């Protein structure tokens, strides 16, 4: 009797497993497995941290960033003219800061395993690799690994979750325009979520954490967001500048 019940349970379990319980077989590519569509044009809505993002904060204005003594020292030495002389105008356009800058994004699938994010402000390009490929090590945008992170919440029939991106090997840059530094060992972890509004608007919400044992006393956590645009109107490539 016991054996019969257990065998029945096994069969039931395997049946559920075989049927998937979650619909069709898992997609083979990152593009096909996308939980939502974030391609298209997006405009940054700069409403939070406005005084640090839309304008160049004054030197030494470090509010909200827990710099350690080494980080404060670097921030205190900020000299935009020196950055210009050394050709480092793009220090505040690296991956750890890019999504906080005003401007527009154009997101496309470069291939089935790579999302491409182009920013008009600073004319930067990020490549988010879902597969084994890598790129960008030592450059402003660093090397980004992406995955669709499923949330085991159990609500609804479709899998839900977020696009998670981990970026490393970035060229040292600024979290903010006024020289708040991050080092080459910093790790940027981001979640890119799409939010649909009842009025038809859609937002891309970027939640980011910068961990940097060299300059930060604790991780710098923030969020920014972009509103979906119907087309590329307003796209305006701007060169990197050391201050707005």
């Amino acid at each position, binding site marked *: 009797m016991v054996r019969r019940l257990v065998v029945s349970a096994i069969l039931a379990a395997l049946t559920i497993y075989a049927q998937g319980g979650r619909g069709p077989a898992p997609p083979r590519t990152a593009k096909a497995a996308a939980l939502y569509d974030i391609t298209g044009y997006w405009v*940054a809505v700069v409403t*939070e941290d406005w005084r640090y993002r839309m304008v160049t904060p004054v030197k030494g204005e470090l509010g909200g960033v827990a710099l350690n003594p080494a980080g404060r020292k670097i921030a205190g030495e900020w000299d935009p003219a020196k950055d210009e002389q050394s050709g480092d105008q793009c220090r505040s356009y690296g991956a750890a800061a890019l999504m906080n800058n005003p401007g527009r994004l154009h997101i496309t699938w470069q291939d089935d395993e790579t999302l491409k994010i182009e920013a008009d402000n600073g004319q930067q390009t990020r490549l988010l690799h879902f597969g084994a490929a890598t790129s960008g090590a030592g450059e402003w945008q660093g090397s980004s690994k992406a995955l669709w992170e*499923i949330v085991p919440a159990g609500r609804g029939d479709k899998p839900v979750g977020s696009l998670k991106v981990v970026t490393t090997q970035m060229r040292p840059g600024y979290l903010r325009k006024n020289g708040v530094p991050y080092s080459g060992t910093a790790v940027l972890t981001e979640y890119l979520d799409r939010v649909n509004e009842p009025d038809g608007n859609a937002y891309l919400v970027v939640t980011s954490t910068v961990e940097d044992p060299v300059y930060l006393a604790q991780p710098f956590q923030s969020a920014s967001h972009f509103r979906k645009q119907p087309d590329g109107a307003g796209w305006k490539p701007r060169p990197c500048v050391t201050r707005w």
Partner: protein
Amino acid sequence: MEAPALCDQVVIVMKKRWSIAASVSSLLALASVLAFGQGLDFSGHTGLPAGIDISGSWYPLPFQDSGLITASGALAEYGGIPLNEAGRLYALAWNPSRIQGRQHQCMGYVPPYTYNQPGNLRFWEERDPYTQRLVALKQYWQISEGTRTIWMDDRPHPPAYAQHTWSGFATGRYEGNQLTVYTTHLKRGWIRANGIPQSDGATLVEHFIRHGDRITYLSVVNDPVYLEEPFSRTYTLGRSIKEPDTWQYACDDGEQILGRTEDQVESYFWGRHPFLHEFADKNKIPFLGTLGGPVTMYAELLDKVSDQKAAEAAATAELKPSAGPIQVSRVADPTPHDGEIHVLPVQGNIFMLAGDGGNVAVQVGDQGAIVVNSGAGGIPDNIVAAIKKLTDKPIQFIVNTGFQPDYTGGNAKLRAAGFDPSVEGSFFSGQFADAGKGATIIGHQNVENHLMALKTAPEGWPSDTFVQARRRKFHNGEAVEIFHVPNAVTDADSVVHFRRSDVIVTGDILNLVNYPHIDVKNGGSIQGELEALNFLLDRTVYQHDEENGTMIIPGRGRLCDEWELAEYRDMLVIIRDRVQDLIRSGATLDQVQAARVTADYDTRFGATAGAWTTPMFVEAVYTTLKNPPNGIKR
């Protein structure tokens, strides 16, 4: 997890000969996990298990907008907020001394403002005890000891004439990996407590996205009164490792500035703000950027401020009202406009009847109903029918707070629908054939005078008039006070206070739809109106943080409490002071009209058509400041 692992688990279960029930349920659970967990990658998890359940204790992470979390921003720090003209002018007129006013000291906070304030907040679920169905998410926040309910059971939002609260009426649903919440019925609060208002016409959509031990919160405020476009913003909340033990945030108001009169509300007349450039100068920010507006949210601002001269000129133009046109109210009309009477329980024995005329209040009890005002003449049958559903006792008294048709139009029919048992069979019935045959109509003598002058039907005239400042009764177990407030919107105004129920019926003294209809020809005046509002504020008590306690049924518009009354008083003081200022400088009425002294309130209360327009209101203020009636003078 791969399939062979499941087989291993099964083998273990069989060998140990666990109970049958445990074995079966374990296997099914494993199968479910396996099925659900296909493709899961937990490698990125560093905190609590991922999920979208937000139950537990959280706190705002201090990294973003850090200067605003504790200090509410500097004066004239509006960058990144899509203010329209009215919103910007409201903020530019705001004097921080205003928060020392009695009714402002303990004002609550509206979402989303609450999520960017210091202090803990806690979410928990409320489920039906029998079905375990999720009914609501509850939230308690420390900053103002506020409790918020997010209904998860698809219930409809209340009608427009229902009360507004700090936390509003919220309904939610899970969408993908998000909790989405839609909120209406918010009080007028802050977008930022440096004077940037969020109106009571605002609605809010929020999304809570949980990533492990962090919630990313996106709010989108739609405020047709003060915003040019939706105001979206993100915050992050961190999960508290242990239950916070600091929750209390008590607030009682008191006298903070001795000697300040009740009709003193500090504000800056446009162009005279002494700290206008302080924030911009200190932080080397283009002044235009600090004034807010949609352009300040986008990269286009970088282009706009690149021409400093043009930017400065544009900023200067934004410091005062434009030439026009006059704006009109953009909030939802609380009048049902369906010819029906809608019953809204208030508190105690009191109900509010909302229809297409002025509001009607009803007190019910064993002694028969008291009805305050009788609505417009067109629908009294519906009022009678509605009252009959509330009580099987007769309408015994009708109180008129004024003589206007919207409050007296149904007098005759309502009177005929009731009778006064205290009169019938008494000495009076021996003297008067109709004594007690209908409800007794109570009103100030001037109500009767005006109705007689208007030659309305005598059956609708007050049968019981008074001339003293206070008429009192004890009816249905509570004291009922009727106060005459002289020369407010007319010379015949009264307010009614049901003391045990603690409900005040204001008549046209408080009109949450328009500016007060100050009828100068019939004795109304701005100063009398302000004295009437302050008289009411001396009688009201809030329950918690300027909410509930004494409930107020206005002449028009939604049910409210002390907060709306105080806001209305503040608005009228500010407008009065502007007009007075211009009169002192020799301005004519045309010049006062051209100055658009109501520009920061027109998108909430303004009208350019109908029986009572904004220019008519401004003229009434101007006229009665220059020539106050009956010696009423500031």
